């Protein structure tokens, strides 16, 4: 059996720039509006600590269970729960049922949720920090494990992500070295 594809967010990498929200809304609605996005970044703009809210495409989806019109169905091809708007009666039960707050409403009170862009999620492509992962389950989960394993201690929405100072000093020294190297290369170019 082929591996199921999942979408996940590496919280430590997300800096809260909101580009995924903007891309999602323009892709699905043709307008730029974070309130029409299927992924929502809850953040304090001044610190690097954000909690992306997105559809986890549950195995046993409460939204589908709650839907009185049976409008939410599973798409085997992409692994996403989709809304059949021909059946949807706009009762918002799915919004209340979702334990993660992943279903939003448009101004017309239509529920909207992540459809994984038919298997090619736009947010994954736009994320500048590669914080949004999409791929076979085992691969994504392994990447997430790696993220946790570097020993990052963080309190989301309180202090931000704290990386041990030693690493950062090393990174900064590395950046300075790169700077000198590019300088040298640039000199040789003689523009």
């Amino acid at each position, binding site marked *: 059996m082929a591996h199921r594809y999942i979408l996940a967010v590496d919280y430590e990498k997300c*800096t*809260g*720039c*909101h*580009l995924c929200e*903007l*891309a999602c*809304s*323009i*892709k699905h609605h*043709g*307008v*730029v*509006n*974070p*309130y*029409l996005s299927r992924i929502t970044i*809850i953040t*304090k*703009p*001044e*610190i*690097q*600590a954000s909690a992306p809210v997105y559809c986890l495409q549950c195995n046993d989806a409460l939204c589908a269970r709650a839907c009185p019109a049976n409008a939410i169905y599973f798409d085997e091809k992409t692994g996403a729960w989709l809304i059949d708007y021909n059946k949807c009666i706009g009762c918002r039960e799915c919004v209340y049922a979702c334990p993660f707050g992943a279903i939003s409403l448009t101004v017309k009170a239509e529920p909207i949720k992540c459809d994984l862009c038919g298997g090619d999620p736009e947010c994954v*492509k*736009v994320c*500048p*920090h590669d914080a949004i992962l999409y791929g076979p389950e085992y691969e994504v989960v392994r990447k997430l494990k790696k993220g946790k394993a570097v020993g990052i201690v963080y309190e989301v929405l309180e*202090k*931000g*992500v*704290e*990386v041990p*100072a030693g690493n*950062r*000093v090393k*990174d*900064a*020294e*590395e*950046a*300075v070295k*790169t*700077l000198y190297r*590019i*300088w040298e290369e*640039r000199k040789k*170019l003689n*523009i």
Partner: protein
Amino acid sequence: MYGWGGRVIYIDLSREKVVVQPLSETEAKMYLGGRGLNSYRLFKMVKPGIDPLSPDNVLCIANGVLAGTVLSMTSRTEISSLSPLTGILGDGNAGGEFSAILKHAGYDQIVITGRASKPKYIWIEDDTVEIRDASDLWGLKVGELVDTLRDIHGDDISVAGIGPAGEHLVRFATTMIDKYHSGARGTGAVWGSKNLKAIAVRGTKGVEIADPETFYKLAKEDEEWFKKNEFVQKIYKVIGTHYGLLAWYPGWRYYEKYLGPEDLPEGIRPPDFAKYEVGRTQCYSCPIACKDVYKLPRWNEYGVASEFESIFALGANNAVTDTEAVLKMEHMADEYGMDVITLGDTLALAKFLYEKGIITDTDTGGIPLRWGDAETQIKLIEMIAYREGFGNKLAEGYRNFAKIIGPEALKYSYDVKGLSRGWYHVDFLNGIFTLAHATSTRGADHLRGRSWAYWENDINMDPELVKKLLEGGLPDYRKDPVGALIVSERACTLTDSIGRCKGSINTWPQAIPLVWKYPLFKGLAKLLTAATGYEFTEEKLVEIADRIYLIEMAFNVRQGIKKKHYAVPFPPEIINTPRIQAEIKRHWEMVDEYLKRRGCDVETAVPKRETLRKLGIEWVADEIENKEFPEWDGPPLWSLDKYPHGR
């Protein structure tokens, strides 16, 4: 209207009246938004010769035509008014989320006039605009202010506001956005003088795009460039503007010398700051995250965005090399709402004058001013914010402070039109650097005629692109500094007017999207056409940029700026040496050439009627032609006891 929010909010605080009007299509097409729209509005609304701290002054806040769209880094808010620091056009360009969220609420500009009788703040939520009581907010530091407003209105809002420095009319107080993003030139004092503490906004309407598919395709192409660029990924993401410490020659001990990468003392090198860093953050829709989040164990505080300018002005220029203290001072400037460059330069000037004996303990109230003395400096910053003791004088800001001390001190004020970025030899970068300071429409400043000036050490400049541009007939600053400067001034004007960041990397390829697709503004024209549905071309964009720049020059003419104010500063000790005299001669030749190419009168530096006619703004000529304006000598200063004091 596609692209634009399509509405302008006019608020008269004296009468507590709010009027929302549609943005006129003509204005939008002629000035785009952001800086363009602000400068135009100020020229229309500000009468020449008024006191910047009086209710007559106008505060304009605008976001730019591409703000809040999916094009990355479109998160800059432009805050403009008649500057209480310089007495000419004063505008600050700040990051944060305000710009995008204001656009999502459906607005392009907020115009504030008058003065409220009691402290007020403004609450904007889509179609609702309310003036609300801010008695409980008055006196709060910026961090507390933002947190309080988030408690009231929710965490998906953005806040622009002022700290104690703005309330105390410190002449270099800034407009602070979302705690840590500052718009300078004394705009914070204008808020204070209007009894306006903050504007909080929530927007759920979003931005309509004329051709979303094309626009998104272009925006993605643009973002791809950052993802591939080695400099962005390996340096800028890691140390942000701190790399400038090695590349931009910070001044040392009041511009006694400039520090090259090898002279940088222990304590203010980029890795030193990494010791205190706990994370990185950014403005809305930015893929880079150039701002650091730092922790100060000594004070048990967190701060954000210790940029190159704060380290250079508060640290190097005052000879302070205590890393944590420099960060603390930067954080204090954010909390009180003050501009770090003018703050640092004013402190450095005071120390220099003290060392020279031009000011003494009698002036300072017994406080000794010593180089490298971080503890006293921290105390002084607090005294400035609340205008206490000697801080009251310093709070007048750089040139005004020197003016109060006397002519001996004024000789050492290295400013152009009241704003300082130090003094430089004219031969540095073939004269383009000093010329850019002289021709800037808000006083000596590194962001008006940016980046050609940094060509040689601008390591992010794509060599392939440079070759292409030069072959395409773009002026090379080594052969034609004046032509090169005019092009970069156009680039900066357009960037400010579309609402994009030009500060986050020291180069303009990122500021003007898709510039690497020669010719110069073709990429931007394509983006604007896709976003707005109106036909934009490269030629039209050049015309828009020139229109905005000339309207700003005309504004300053009305404030009394004459040709002599295009002079560059030098220390009095060397000004009469043959070398410097030769440099000055060369500078004036360049100024003449510049004025000629800008279509101004070479003798008076006033924009010519025919130039203005060609740009479609002949009415501006009626305002400035054949009129006498009293010669500029800084803003009108108040007697020092008239300001609010203490906390």
